[in-house]
C-alpha cells in the first residue's frame, strides 16, 4: 500500500511536469494547426535562461522562471513573425521540415555558446527540502510541480472558455476569414497564443528540469515523448492533455518499478492501445 501510494505520487509529479511542457504544443497543434517540432527547443531555451540567471547570476529560482518565460517569448516572437506565419496554412510536411530545422539550429547554437555539459537550475531551499508526507518523503520541488500543473490547467481553461480572448481565439480557429470579417485581428490572436504556448514551454522546461535535465540535445531527445502525449490527449484539448499526461506518467512510472528491464515497452503499448481506440486522442475533436 505504502509502495503503491509512493509510486502514485511519483507518477503524478512526472505526469504534471510533462503536462506543463506539452500543453503549449497541444495548443499550437490543436488551435493553430501548426506541428511545432521546435516546441522542445523553446522549453530548452527557457531552461538555459533560468539556469544562467539562477546559477551564474545568482538571481534566485522565481526570478529565473520569470526571466526564462519572458526571454523565450522574446526569442520566439520574431521567429513567429518571420517564419511561422508563412507556414500557418501550408501542409504538415512543410511545417515539420521548417520546425525541425529550427530545432537543429537551436541545438547547434546552444551547444556552441553553453557547451555540451548539463546545466542545472539551483532550487531555493524551500523546494530542495524533502517534505514528509507520512508514508514517504518527497522532494518539495515535486509538490511544486504538481501544484503548478494544476494552476496551469485551471488558468488555461478559464482563459480559453471564459474570457473574451478565448472567444476570439476559438472563432479565429473555427473560421479565420469569417472572424476577420467580423473585425477580429487574427494575426494578433495567433501571435498572442503562440507567445502563450512558448511561455508555457519555457515554464515547463524550467520546472521540469529535475525530470528532464537541460542539455543541448534536450530538444531532440524528448521530442517523441512530447508528440506522443499530444496525440494521445488529442490536440488542442486541455483536459485531454492532462488525462494523457497522468495516464502515461502513471504507466511509465509503474512499469519502471515493476519490470525495469522492459523499459519503455508499457509506455508505447499504452500509446498504441489509446490511439487504436481513440484515433483523435482521448479528447480530440473531429475536424
Amino acid at each position: 500500500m505504502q509502495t503503491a501510494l509512493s509510486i502514485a505520487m511519483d507518477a503524478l509529479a512526472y505526469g504534471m511536469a510533462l503536462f506543463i511542457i506539452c500543453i503549449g504544443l497541444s495548443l499550437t497543434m490543436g488551435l493553430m494547426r501548426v506541428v511545432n517540432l521546435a516546441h522542445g527547443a523553446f522549453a530548452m531555451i527557457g531552461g538555459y535562461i533560468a539556469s544562467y540567471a539562477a546559477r551564474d547570476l545568482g538571481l534566485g529560482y522565481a526570478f529565473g522562471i520569470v526571466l526564462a518565460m519572458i526571454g523565450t517569448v522574446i526569442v520566439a516572437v520574431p521567429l513567429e513573425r518571420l517564419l511561422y506565419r508563412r507556414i500557418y496554412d501550408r501542409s504538415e510536411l512543410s511545417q515539420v521540415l521548417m520546425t525541425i530545422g529550427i530545432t537543429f539550429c537551436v541545438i547547434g547554437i546552444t551547444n556552441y555558446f553553453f557547451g555540451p555539459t548539463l546545466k542545472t537550475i539551483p532550487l531555493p531551499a524551500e523546494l530542495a527540502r524533502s517534505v514528509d508526507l507520512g508514508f514517504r518523503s518527497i522532494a518539495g520541488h515535486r509538490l511544486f510541480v504538481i501544484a503548478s500543473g494544476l494552476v496551469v490547467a485551471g488558468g488555461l481553461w478559464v482563459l480559453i472558455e471564459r474570457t473574451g480572448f478565448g472567444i476570439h481565439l476559438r472563432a479565429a480557429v473555427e473560421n479565420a476569414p469569417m472572424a476577420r470579417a467580423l473585425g477580429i485581428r487574427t494575426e494578433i490572436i495567433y501571435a498572442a497564443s503562440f507567445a502563450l504556448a512558448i511561455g508555457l514551454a519555457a515554464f515547463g522546461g524550467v520546472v521540469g528540469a529535475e525530470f528532464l535535465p537541460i542539455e543541448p540535445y534536450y530538444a531532440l531527445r524528448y521530442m517523441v515523448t512530447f508528440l506522443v502525449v499530444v496525440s494521445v490527449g488529442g490536440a488542442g484539448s486541455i483536459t485531454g492533455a492532462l488525462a494523457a499526461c497522468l495516464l502515461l506518467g502513471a504507466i511509465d512510472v509503474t512499469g519502471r518499478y515493476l519490470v525495469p528491464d522492459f523499459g519503455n515497452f508499457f509506455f508505447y503499448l499504452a500509446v498504441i492501445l489509446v490511439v487504436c481506440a481513440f484515433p483523435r486522442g482521448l479528447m480530440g475533436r473531429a475536424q
Partner: protein
Amino acid sequence: MTKGFLNRWLSAGALALAGALTLGASAMADTIKVGIIGPFSGPFALQGKNFQAGAEAWLAQNGKSVAGHDIELVYRDLPTANPQQARALAQELIVRDKVQYLGGVYFTPDAMAITPLLKQGNVPLVIFNAATSAIMTSSPLVVRTSFTTAQTTTPLGKAAVERGVKKFVSVVSDYGPGVDAEGAFKKAIEAAGGEVKESIRIPLNTTEFSPIMQRIRDAGAEGVFAFLPSGPPTLGFVKAFSDTGLKKAGVKLFATGDLTQESDLPALGEAASGMITSFHYAVSHESEINKRFVAAAEKAIGAPDLLSFPAVGAYDGMFVISKMIAATAGKQDAEKAVEAVKGLGWESPRGPVKIDPETRHITQTIYLREVTKDAQGRWINKEIASVPDQKDPGLAK
C-alpha cells in the same frame, strides 16, 4: 585503335600520378601523421575535446617532433557510435592521408570496426578510451591507454565490504558496458563476502529514477552499485538517490568514476557529495606531473571545468605513439612499433602505469575516491585509497 589510344592516355596519367605521389611522399618524409578519431561534435563533443586537449597538452610539453620527425595530428569527427563510418574514416586516414598511426576512438563498436584494417594498412591503433576488454583480442596491433569497465569496477567490491556494506542492489544501463559492470561487480562483491540481492537493468534513455529508488528501498539494500553513461541519466540518478531520501536513510552509493567525471560535478554538486567511486584517474590527483599536465590540458581545452578522464588517455596515448616513432626511426612498421611498447612502463599523470606485454592493455593503479569539496570550494573526486598494479580482469586467463 581508340582502345589503344585510351590505354596510352591512362598509363600516362597513372605514371604522372605515381610521380606526383612519390614527389609528395619524399617532400613530406619528415612529417609523421597521426590520425585521431573521436566525437568532436554532437552529444559527446566534450569527450572529443578532451582527446584533443590531452594530445595537444602532450605536444605542448614535449615539442612537435620526436627524434627528428615532425608529428602532425589529423582529427576526424565521429559524433556517435557508428561502426561503418568509423571504418570509412579509418580507411580514408590510412589510404588518402597516409597516417602512420591511428589514435582516439571513444566507443567500443567503432574500435571493433577499425581493428580489421590495421594489418593490411600496416598501422597500429592506440585506443584513448573505448573500454571493452574484447577489443584487445581482435588485433595484435592495438594498444590501449585508457581503462576497462571490469578493471575499474573490481576493486570496488572489496572496498565496499571493508566499509561494512554487504547487501547490494546493482543498477546498470542496459547496454554492453553496463552489463560488463554488473557482472564484474557481482563477481568482486561475492569474492569479498557480500551479495547482490537484485540486479536491475534500465534502458539507456531513462531520466526519471524514482521508481528505481523505490525498488532499492523495498529490496532492503545497504548499498547501491550504479553504472550509467555520463550525462542526463547520471544527473537524474544521483539526484533521485538523494531526493527520495535513500541517501539520508544511510544507503551507500558506489559507482565507477564514469558517473562522477569532473565535468559533471558542478551540476551534480551536493547531491553527489559522499559518493564513493573507483577509477583510474582524478583531475585532482596529487602529483607534480599531474599538476603540469592539468595546467597544459586546461589551457588546450579553454575552460578548466571541462577537463576529465579522456584527456589523460589521449596524453598517455601520445606518449606511447612517440615511443613507437622513436623505436621505428620514423619508418612505417606497425608490428615493430607495437613490439617496442610491450612492457613499456612510465610515470603518467594518473600514477605509475605499464603496457602489459601480453594483453597490450594498460596496467595501472585504481583509486577509490570520494566526492567532496576542495579548499577553493570546487567539487572534486578526492582520492582516499589506491589499489596498485591492476591489470584488466576481463582479459586475465
